[in-house]
């Protein structure tokens, strides 16, 4: 199944309505979830993605998820939310609890891709993370919303306290690694590539 990053970014991905468990997830996870689904033959799972750009507007995530959950109750037997807290300050967890649906554990995708325990143990506070999707969509998530295309002089106001760009690679892709390295250079940060695979995302999906 071919999916378009631009659509994932702005509009998300509709469910196929095949599979009894509806996964409501962030558009930034679509490639990974579909890859896991295909690799494991998890045909009972049906993915719906909300626009990935909500990553930059976490205050909008709880309402968007709640609307999708309400709609999904009409079409699916079970629903699981493929978001972690993602900057909602506990509000998504509270909303999911009120709706009676489960969601991914952890603060954000950087944590569950690495594995929540391992990520917490690192306790690194000066790392700026990118995933495969965020490397591909760096301009849409970083350059343009932060105004670095219009005002490059703002770079150090945003990133002056960071030291390293950590590229959490979900796949082996030399082109993406090269792009991630270039992103680090643009931000004036050291570069580290860390292969994570799918981490706790795979574990959570395997339990559904």
């Amino acid at each position, binding site marked *: 199944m071919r999916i378009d990053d631009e659509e994932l970014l702005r509009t998300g991905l509709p469910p196929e309505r095949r599979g009894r468990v509806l996964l409501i997830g962030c558009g930034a996870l679509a490639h990974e979830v579909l890859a896991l689904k295909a690799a494991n033959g998890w045909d009972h799972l049906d993915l719906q993605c909300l626009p990935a750009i909500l990553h930059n507007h976490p205050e909008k995530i709880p309402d968007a998820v709640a609307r999708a959950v309400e709609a999904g109750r009409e079409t699916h037997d079970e629903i699981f939310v493929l978001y972690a807290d993602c*900057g*909602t300050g*506990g509000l998504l967890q509270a909303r999911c609890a009120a709706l009676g649906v489960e969601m991914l554990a952890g603060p954000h995708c950087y944590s569950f891709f690495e594995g929540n325990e391992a990520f917490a143990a690192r306790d690194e*506070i*000066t790392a700026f993370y990118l995933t495969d999707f965020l490397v591909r969509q760096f301009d849409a998530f970083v350059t343009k919303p932060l*105004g670095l295309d*219009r005002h490059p002089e*703002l770079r150090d*106001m945003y990133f002056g306290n960071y030291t390293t760009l950590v590229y959490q690679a979900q796949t082996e892709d030399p082109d993406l690694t090269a792009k991630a390295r270039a992103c680090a250079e643009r931000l004036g940060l050291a570069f580290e590539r860390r292969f994570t695979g799918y981490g706790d995302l795979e574990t959570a999906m395997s339990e559904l």
Partner: protein
Amino acid sequence: MSDEEEDIILSELDDEELVAQMFDDLYDGMKEEIEEGVNILLERGWTPYDILTKALVGGMTIVGNDFRDGILFVPEVLMAANAMKGGMAILKPLLVETGAPRIGKMVIGTVKGDIHDIGKNLVSMMMEGAGFEVVDLGINNAVEKYLDALEAEQPDILGMSALLTTTMPYMKVVIDTLKDKGIRDDYIVLVGGAPLNEEFGRAIGADAYCRDAAVAVETAKDFVKRKHNQLAAGA
């Protein structure tokens, strides 16, 4: 048409026109023009306090309102703040010399484990613009650092900032420590940061959650006024 337009010579504008132009320049994030405007007003005999409040804070209030209303976005606000910072750098030493009125004092810092300071820096600047003395502890502050600063500075207000869901609970650690030491009510505690909300502010025992820098200033003014009224009533 633009070829026909002439550059605006700030020094040729009268005071009213110049202040209006400075509002525009702040809005457009033009630091050098703001610095020039501040210097011209100083040469014309304006007090540093009047320049700060009437030209700079007046202009930033428009920026803040448009940010709140979704007309301006973070990059533009930061450009405006940078321009204001240029003007403030000229005025700050002069404000001290001329004994400008001081509303109160604030100690502010980003909590432990968190290195994000854009919002905090905006709050610091706007608080200074509003007449507060601000002691900025920077980023990644452990509870001990807050306690030391509170003891040394004796501020009216403690401000804490966090951008991460994982670091915002540390605000409660600080407030609980203040309670344990019996000094919680000696300070107005204001908290802010993207993942926070009013409910969280209440839950951790802060006096108020401030959505943005403009709200922080108004909230601070309001609490300090109430505090002074209480002291006056108790005297």
